[in-house]
C-alpha cells in the first residue's frame, strides 16, 4: 500500500485542467511513498482521454467505460471498486464541483479519513500532512492524518499542469455497476449568464464586492466605471443578492476575465473569485483589510475605505 490513485475530471468531451494538476500532485506523492501512480478516467471518450493521460510519471491509466458524462452514482461505485483493486495508500480526487459531488461519498463508503480542498501535501511514513485554508483564506493550517489509507481532494490551480508524455500502460477496468443504485440522472446542461455585456471582452473592469454593503451604494461604482470608461463587474455576493445580473460575475462559477486593468474594490480575494481574474494584466485592490488575500495577487494596493477613495478617484477623472 504505497501506491497513489488519482481520478481524472472531464466535462463535455474535454479533460479538465485539474486532471493534469492531479497527475503532478500524484507524482509528488508517489515519489515520497516510493509507490506507483495510477490514474483513472471514468466515462466519456476514455480511449482519447487515456492517451492524453499517458504522462510522464504515470505508471498505469485505468479507463472505465460508462456513459458520456459524469454521474455521481456511477463514479462513487467505480472509484470504490478501483480503490479495492489498486489498494493505494492515497486516493486523490479533484475539489471541483464534480469532486464535491462524489468524493465525500467515496470516502464514506470506504471508511477513509478524508481531507478536502488541500493546497499542499507531504508524507512522513504513514502520516499525511495536508495544508488547508480556513476562515476564507485568513489562516492556513496543517492537518496530520494518521491512517494507512487516506482520501484527499485537491484544490485547483495549486499544482502545475503537466503535459510531458510518458509510457504508462493503459488498462481497461471492468467495473460492475449496480444500475439499481443509480438513482440520479443528468438530463442536460445549460449555459447561463449571457446578455447585454460580455465582461470577458472588457479592457478595463471596475469590480465590486461585498464591501459595498448596500444596493444603493452601487451608484458610486457605476459613476466610477463611467468616469473611467470601464465596465462594471463584481464578485459573487453582489450577484447572489440580485444587485447585478449573473453575466457580471467574475470567478470560478462566473466568467474568466483578462482585462488590461482590473480594479477590485471591497473584494476579499476568495480562491473562487481569484480563479476568474488572476490573468488580468494589472490588478489594483482597494480594501480596508491589509491582510485580505486579494493583495497577494494585486500589483497595486490601497488599504483604505472605498467610500473615501472611490469618490476621490471619480473627482480625479471629472
Amino acid at each position, binding site marked *: 500500500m504505497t501506491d497513489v490513485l488519482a481520478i481524472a475530471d472531464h466535462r463535455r468531451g474535454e479533460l479538465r485542467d485539474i486532471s493534469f494538476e492531479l497527475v503532478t500532485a500524484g507524482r509528488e506523492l508517489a515519489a515520497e511513498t516510493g509507490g506507483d501512480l495510477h490514474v483513472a478516467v471514468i466515462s466519456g471518450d476514455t480511449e482519447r482521454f487515456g492517451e492524453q493521460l499517458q504522462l510522464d510519471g504515470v505508471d498505469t491509466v485505468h479507463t472505465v467505460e460508462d456513459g458520456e458524462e459524469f454521474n455521481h452514482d456511477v463514479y462513487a461505485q467505480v472509484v470504490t471498486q478501483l480503490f479495492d483493486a489498486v489498494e493505494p495508500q492515497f486516493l486523490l480526487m479533484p475539489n471541483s464541483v464534480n469532486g464535491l459531488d462524489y468524493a*465525500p461519498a467515496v470516502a464514506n463508503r470506504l471508511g477513509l479519513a478524508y481531507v478536502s480542498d488541500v493546497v499542499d501535501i507531504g508524507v512522513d511514513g504513514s502520516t499525511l500532512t495536508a495544508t488547508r485554508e480556513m476562515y476564507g483564506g485568513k489562516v492556513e493550517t496543517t492537518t496530520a492524518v494518521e491512517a494507512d489509507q487516506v482520501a484527499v481532494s485537491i484544490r485547483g490551480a495549486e499544482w502545475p499542469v503537466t503535459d510531458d508524455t510518458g509510457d504508462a500502460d493503459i488498462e481497461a477496468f471492468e467495473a460492475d455497476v449496480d444500475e439499481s443504485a443509480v438513482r*440520479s440522472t443528468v438530463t442536460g446542461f445549460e449555459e447561463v449568464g449571457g446578455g447585454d455585456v460580455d465582461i470577458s471582452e472588457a479592457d478595463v473592469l471596475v469590480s465590486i464586492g461585498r464591501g459595498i454593503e448596500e444596493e444603493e451604494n452601487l451608484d458610486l461604482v457605476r459613476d466610477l466605471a463611467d468616469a473611467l470608461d470601464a465596465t462594471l463587474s463584481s464578485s459573487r455576493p453582489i450577484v447572489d443578492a440580485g444587485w447585478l445580473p449573473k453575466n457580471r460575475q467574475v470567478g470560478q462559477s462566473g466568467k474568466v476575465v483578462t482585462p488590461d486593468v482590473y480594479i477590485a474594490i471591497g473584494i476579499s480575494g476568495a480562491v473562487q473569485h481569484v480563479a476568474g481574474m488572476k490573468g488580468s494584466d494589472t490588478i489594483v485592490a482597494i480594501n480596508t483589510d491589509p491582510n485580505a488575500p486579494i493583495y497577494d495577487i494585486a500589483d497595486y494596493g490601497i488599504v483604505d475605505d472605498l467610500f473615501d477613495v472611490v469618490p476621490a478617484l471619480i473627482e480625479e477623472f471629472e
Partner: protein
Amino acid sequence: MKVLVTVKEVAAVEDEFQIAGTSIDETYLEYDLNEWDDYAVEEAVQLQEAGIADEVVAVTIGPERAEETIRMALAKGADRAVRVWDDALEGADLLDVGAKTAILEKVVEEEDPDLVLSGVQADDDGFGATGVSLADALGFEWAAVVNHLDQDSVESGTASVRRELEGGVEELTDVELPAVLTIQTGINEPRYASLRGIRQAQRKEIAPKTLGDLGLDAAAVENELTLTDMYEPETESDATYFEGGPEEEAAQLADLLREKGVGAQ
C-alpha cells in the same frame, strides 16, 4: 413531508487577530449562521410556505452558545431544532467529516425526513463534504452545489435540481427522494428574521442531545485528523501600496491609470 436543514454556527475572523496554538483567540471571533446554510434554511421555509413541507427541523452540532444562531433559523420559519453537543466534542480543534456524518446520521434516522438540505460548505473549516457524506451513509440520494430546486418535483418524489458547475454552466439532474441537497448561495434570497419571527422563536423548542442520547459513544467521533499548525499565510504580496489618505491615494492611482491609458477619451 418533512425537511431537515443542517445548520452551523461559524466564526468569522476580524481583520486583525492573533492565533493561540491551533485556534484563533476567542476575542477575535464573531459568530454567525454559516452563509450557505442561510440559503438552505430559506429554501426549506419556502417549501413549507408552498405547502409542500409540513415541518422544517433545523439540526446543529454546537455548544450552548450556538443556540443564538439556531434561533435565527427558527425566527425565519423553522419549526423546531435539535442541537447535539457533548463533552467528547468540547476540546476538539477539528471535527472531521466522518464524525459529523456519524452524528447527523443518527439525527436523520430519528427524524426520518424526506429531504435534507445543507450548505455546500461551511465558511470556517471549508470541508465542503458533510452533506454528500451524510447522504451516502444514510443510503439517500444526493446532489451537490444546487442552485435551483424545482419545488413541484419534490412533491412527486423526485427532486429536479440545477447544479452550478464551473464557468457559467449548469447541470440539470433528477434525484430520487429521500435525498440530501447541498445548497449553493444565490438559489434564493434569504429573508431577514422579522421581529415577530424573533419573538416566536423564543418559544420554539431547541432539543439538546448528547452522543449518548443518539446511541453513540465518544469513539464514534474520534478521528484520524489532527490540526497540528495554524498560521497566517505568508503574504506573497509584492504590490506597490499607495499611501497618505484617500485624496492622495486616489491621485496616485489616477496617475497610474492615466499612464495605462484608462479614462482617456
